């Protein structure tokens, strides 16, 4: 088991390295750091701009391979992911943003998977009941709401709620209120800020899990082994839970891994709407500010989250499926 996981982790590591380096070349090709300096007044000469960019390894007069080597040796030797064209360190930017994005994405994925799978199981065992039909309709609509629309709708709702309550019940912007002291108040404040964006991610993300889990369970619910299990004296609920559900969870577990990048994309928009300074905002900021090193760091973060998800999915498959033998 451990060896199997280690082997797949090594495979993913290679993928991450290749993907990150490929992004470096793409980003260097498509982003021009000089344009940040061209907007400055008084006007800088090309020579001055090159001189300003050279210490960060971003000078376009240097060869692409040279810039790549500068960046790569920084990452490998000092774990230094480079600088933005204006000299801000990528490491310090990413360090606190990862935490902010991490809590948002994790909470969003966990809630949507839990709720979606639970609803899928409930409706599959009561196919064509009232709850099944109603929740199916609601899920179809929610599944198709673009993240931006959902997030802005929630903002409207929260603003209206705050006006009715005459104070700030739900925070619409930011990850925390500055100036809140003490462990408990700070924790409560964080949680309050987390509510709306998490609801947004969960509400728009759960529907996919609902559909797939419902379909998967309906496929297995009439299988022979479930009937055999009932023949041994289990109740219908027990047979479904212990036998049908277990095998129908396997494809779900594998696809959790590959939705993490999509959740991350959803988080970009959620962060933009709710004003969270996480990796998603950093993503839009680095691209619009021609920050090559920052963009590459975002890509590396995305690849790492995918890989972590995939390895976890492998482990879950092995634990759930008695037919999978690893050695």
């Amino acid at each position, binding site marked *: 088991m451990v060896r199997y996981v280690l082997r797949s982790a090594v495979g993913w590591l290679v993928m991450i390295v290749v993907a990150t380096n490929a*992004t470096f070349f793409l980003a260097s090709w498509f982003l021009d750091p000089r344009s940040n300096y061209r907007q400055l007044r008084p006007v800088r000469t090309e020579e001055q701009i090159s001189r300003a960019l050279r210490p960060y390894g971003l000078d376009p007069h240097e060869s692409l391979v040279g810039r790549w080597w500068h960046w790569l040796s920084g990452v490998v030797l000092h774990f230094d992911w480079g600088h933005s064209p204006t000299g801000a360190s990528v490491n310090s930017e990413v360090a606190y943003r990862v935490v902010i994005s991490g809590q948002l994405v994790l909470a969003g994925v966990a809630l949507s998977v839990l709720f979606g799978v639970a609803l899928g199981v409930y409706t599959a065992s009561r196919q064509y009941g009232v709850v099944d039909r109603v929740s199916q309709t609601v899920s179809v609509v929610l599944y198709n709401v673009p993240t931006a629309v959902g997030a*802005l709708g929630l903002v409207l709702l929260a603003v209206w709620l705050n006006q009715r309550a005459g104070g700030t019940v739900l925070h619409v912007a930011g990850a925390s209120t500055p100036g809140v002291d003490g462990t408990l108040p700070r924790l409560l404040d964080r949680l309050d800020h987390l509510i709306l964006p998490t609801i947004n991610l969960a509400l728009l993300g759960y529907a996919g899990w609902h559909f797939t889990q419902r379909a998967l369970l309906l496929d297995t619910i009439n299988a022979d082994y479930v009937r055999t299990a009932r023949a041994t004296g289990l109740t219908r609920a027990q047979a479904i839970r212990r036998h049908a559900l277990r095998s129908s969870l396997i494809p779900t577990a594998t696809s959790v891994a590959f939705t993490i990048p999509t959740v991350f994309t959803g988080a970009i928009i959620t962060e933009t709407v709710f004003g969270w300074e996480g990796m998603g905002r950093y993503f839009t900021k680095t691209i619009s500010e021609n920050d090559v090193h920052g963009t590459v760091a975002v*890509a590396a973060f995305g690849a790492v989250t995918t890989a972590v998800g995939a390895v976890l999915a492998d482990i879950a498959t092995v634990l759930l499926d008695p037919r999978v033998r690893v050695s």
Partner: protein
Amino acid sequence: MAAPIPPLPLDPEVPAPRLGRGRLYRRRFVRNRGALLGVLIFVALVLFAAFGHLLTSWNWADPDLTALTQPPTPAHPFGTGQGGNDLLAECVHGLQRSLVIALSVSALTTVIAAVVGAGTAYLGGRTERVSLAVIHFLLVVPSFLILALISNRVAGDWRVLILVLTLFGWVFNARIVWSVSTSLRERDYVLMAEFMDVSRWRIVLRHIVPHLSSLLIINLTLGVDSTVLNETALSFLGFGVKTPDVSLGSLLADGASTISSAPWLFAYPAGLLVVLTVSVMLIGDGLRDALDPTSRAGG
């Protein structure tokens, strides 16, 4: 030798017409009310995109400087934006953009996915290994980031947006097509075609791909949905369609900044988007049920 069995007498009152495949599918599809509703809404939206400009005397690009940020009035049924642009005209134009982008990207990705997925599965060997490696690699690469990188550089030309979305859109479908086709390459009719010395690409195109048609049709419809969502996300963040051009996504982004002072700027494009994606999803669901080979519906 047994005596030849006399033919069964045909019951004249119960004719048993053999349904053609097309008619069977059509019947199953029409029986699904949700799917019909989806088709109706979709057709209405296409008509709105094509002829909606007749509903207003304003052009989407011309500002009405006497009406800045006005709520809906008879002159401007959807209200006006901050620059005095008529929102109805902008919505019609944006819907047109979004529809054209979504339909063409979805068609292109489906064709590429079918040819690459089925071809890879049939040819096997080194071709299969190499193209699977490429597909897996493209799945790991944060495609949304690269999409944003490229489309930001080319500055909002919708034709380039189609190319870029296609470039990254086919991968996942190709993976699915590949895994389905691996079971098709051993079929008898494929072997038969091989014995008859049919060329390899002809086998892929004439014998394998048609067997994937239901999967491909469903992918085509759902691809419209995911492209609309992707395009909206890109344009919302400012990396897709950009001013002076408008799409539903860029209209949303404009509306987002004035959401409490001028909610109609957000509400109309948002409503159109949701109605569009829901109708496409209903059509896709109906098609999936109608084309399902294991369907228990008799006729």
